[in-house]
């Protein structure tokens, strides 16, 4: 994350870029080239065009196929990529991108400002993260290699949004015309990233090959990069143990512990901090049982997060404290922690007038959970005995499939539900959607499905969405976190940060804010 002031921001030059992502430039020039890297994955991409599709399944391979205007380094600072430098206007309402002149797409056509304009507008109009380019008014093109991004209002998340995982520059000459969401070339795209597509077999594998005309010299290091699909994390780790694959990303719990025991394995804990995956118990604030904040706080105090972290997740995750993940520069720990305190929970329930009945129960609570997420289901099951201790009789409601759960939660036909929601780099992109009262939209999953409404929070988030000064913006988010955690529209449980396991032969595995959802141009394979 960067401080955006009115001074001009100039990029350091693309030649230095490579050195910022792991190995120093000199070492990189002499580093081994060639080899095949096989990454195992349980993710199944619908297609490969991340301009219209979110999610790791698409974004991880798309980061290899497409280049973006900028990349973020491990310190959350933007670095040159397709844009060799950029300037922010004095009023913070436009950013001028100066593109490299030597970048070409995999079909040999040059990357121009027209492609940047086409891509940014396509993302604004089609990507599910609507706030990412919400303030984008227009992109003007003074010349073939200069694009001016014009905004309706200052947009502090803009530079992060223009990084690898979120803004692929797609070729206008391939994608123009037709509905981009169902464009036939989404499955066989042309980009200007370090690797080009060789074969995409859904359900099997994705084979990418070095793009020899990639604009960063001596990169990529690998000859070939392959994503191989596995049905579940168990078989993924088994393949890693057997040496069938060189990398097993997005591992948690027992699978991560097993991967750690593989000889020579390089495990990156808390990988991809920008993703910020939070797991929480969300309350439906329209339900009369849950309108009193003391009841919600009581439930939060009744949850033993240490047990969840150590007992259920094997110590590979950490407890979460609020709506912004701890890896974010905007994270604040100065909130109520809700340490396990059943006594306090009982006091709060008494104060709320919920006395135990003849059977010892104060009230019943139905808890949903999205199907297919073992970690969330385990917490859902744990809540039954945990809340029983404070007189809350939990019934677990399972959904046969994702649509059923989504319909119940988005339609506000639920009392409480486990959920996993990701920060996606900047709060504007992944956090605001859950808390803004303007985003209470029945039928839309991962909106403000809790029906949480706080004028003060709305005001703080609106200000933070425009504030370009890092210190002032951090202060706004600090206050926001304090209020939301106190109001307790959800009980924050864990940050399900994952680890990435890389084999002993892998050289310079990615350690940036997006983990393996970033360009792997600098990653190599050791010969021995």
């Amino acid at each position, binding site marked *: 994350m960067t401080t955006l002031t009115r001074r001009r921001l100039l990029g350091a030059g693309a030649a230095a870029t490579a050195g910022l992502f792991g190995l120093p430039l000199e070492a990189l020039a002499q580093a081994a080239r060639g080899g*095949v890297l*096989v990454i195992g994955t349980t993710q*199944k991409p*619908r*297609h490969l065009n991340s301009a*219209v*599709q*979110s*999610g790791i399944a698409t974004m991880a391979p798309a980061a290899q196929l497409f280049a973006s205007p900028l990349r973020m380094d491990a310190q959350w600072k933007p670095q040159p990529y397709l844009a060799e430098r950029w300037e922010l206007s004095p009023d913070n309402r436009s950013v001028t991108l100066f593109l490299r002149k030597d970048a070409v797409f995999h079909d040999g056509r040059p990357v121009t400002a027209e492609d940047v304009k086409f891509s940014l507008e396509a993302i604004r109009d089609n990507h*599910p*993260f*609507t706030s990412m380019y919400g303030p984008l008014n227009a992109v003007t093109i003074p010349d073939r290699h200069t694009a001016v991004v014009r905004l309706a209002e200052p947009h502090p998340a803009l530079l992060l949004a223009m990084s690898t995982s979120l803004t692929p520059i797609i070729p206008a000459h391939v994608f123009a015309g037709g*509905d981009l*969401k*169902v464009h036939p070339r*989404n*499955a066989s795209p042309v980009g200007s990233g370090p690797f080009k597509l*060789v*074969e995409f*077999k*859904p*359900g*099997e*594998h994705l*084979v990418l090959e070095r793009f020899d005309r990639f604009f960063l010299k001596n990169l990529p290091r690998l000859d*070939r990069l*392959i994503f*191989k*699909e*596995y*049905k579940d994390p168990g*078989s993924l780790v*088994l*393949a890693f*143990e*057997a*040496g*069938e694959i060189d990398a097993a990303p997005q591992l948690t719990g027992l699978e991560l512990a097993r991967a750690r025991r593989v000889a020579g394995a390089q495990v990156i804990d808390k990988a991809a901090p920008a993703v910020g995956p939070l797991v929480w118990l969300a309350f439906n604030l329209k339900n009369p049982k849950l309108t009193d904040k003391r009841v919600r706080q009581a439930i939060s105090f009744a949850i033993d997060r240490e047990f969840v972290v150590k007992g259920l997740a094997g110590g590979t995750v950490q407890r979460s404290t609020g709506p912004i993940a701890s890896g974010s520069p905007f994270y604040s720990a100065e909130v109520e922690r809700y340490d396990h305190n059943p006594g306090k929970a009982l006091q709060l329930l008494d104060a709320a007038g919920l006395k135990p009945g003849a059977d010892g129960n104060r009230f019943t609570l139905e808890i949903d959970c999205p199907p*297919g997420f073992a970690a969330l289901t385990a917490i859902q099951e744990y809540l039954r005995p945990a809340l029983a201790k404070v007189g809350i009789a939990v019934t677990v409601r399972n959904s*046969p*499939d*994702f*649509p*059923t759960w*989504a*319909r119940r939660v*988005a339609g506000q036909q639920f009392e409480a539900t486990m959920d996993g929601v990701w920060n996606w780099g900047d709060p504007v992109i992944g956090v605001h*959607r859950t808390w803004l009262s303007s985003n209470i*939209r029945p*039928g*839309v*999953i*991962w*909106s403000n499905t809790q029906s949480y409404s706080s004028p003060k929070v709305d005001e703080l988030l609106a200000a933070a969405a425009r504030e370009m000064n890092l210190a002032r913006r951090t202060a706004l988010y600090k206050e926001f976190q304090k209020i939301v955690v106190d109001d307790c529209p959800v009980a924050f449980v864990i940050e399900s940060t994952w680890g990435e396991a890389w084999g002993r032969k892998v050289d310079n595995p990615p350690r940036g804010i997006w983990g393996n959802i970033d360009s792997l141009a600098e990653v190599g394979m050791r010969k021995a």
Partner: protein
Amino acid sequence: MQRTLVTVLRRLALAVGLVLAVLAVNFTLIHAAPGDPALVIAGEMGGADEATMATIRKTYGLDRPLHEQFFTYLGKSVRGDLGTSYTYNRPVIDLILGRLGPTVLLVLTALLCAIVIGTGLGVLASRRPDSFGSGVVTVFSLVGYAMPVFWTGILLVILFGKVWPVMPIAGMRDVRAFGAGPWQAALDVAHHLVLPAATLAIVYLAQYSRLSRASMLEVLGSDYIRTARAKGLSDAVVTFKHALRNALMPIVTIAGLQFGNLISGAVLVETVFSWPGLGTLALDAILGRDYPTLLGVLTFSAILVIVANLITDLSYRWIDPRLRGR
């Protein structure tokens, strides 16, 4: 010959009607199941607002009445267009044709292994029904038959993935060898085929050994076998020429009937071994409410079963000359 041709044509005509009936039933059942595919697509996109949901429904034709969707689907299917997958955003026919080969390879390999080895074991056991070897075959058959196919698969995955890692446990190809020559590729596929085919074959192998043992015991007790022995024919000629041919009829019948079971077993085996066939495609389609893909897979599975039964019918005529004139 002409009679056979007429029979084949009559069966084919019936098969077409059967496929259409299967299609209609499947379409109705799938659409009657709860769950909105537009929500799944929206979920995979990371959420969507009302306008986007409406666009999704319009794009995939989900906003139209069910009967209209059916007749459109039927019309297109007859022309070979099975629609576009909601999940993969690709023509369903391309997805199915890409997965058909691996499933047919897996099922036929398993079936062949089960018939040949199972029948062989059954024949051996029938020659000395009270011997130790016969007892071993009987126990092996019972254990093989009792083990659920997915459990056998998981055991083999653990054994060959962890304890004795000499066999690939997932997929159909070693992706590192991508671009290798045809022979190398064929060997690679064969290597990957061993565990899934063995898993699928074991349960049927057990059945065939039991069946062939019983069938052979019955035939070996017949008068004409006694006559053959009295003529001084060798034991091998009596067993394999006279007895086995007659004992094959129930085995062939069962093979044809079991083809459908084999395909359903393949769904489990393909899932355990990440074998890229119709089974894994069907499972993904079920989980993703991908109606066109699921319908396409079911239709193709029905066609495979119908073809297998047709081949079974025709093979009767080859095995039993008395049926050729009928």
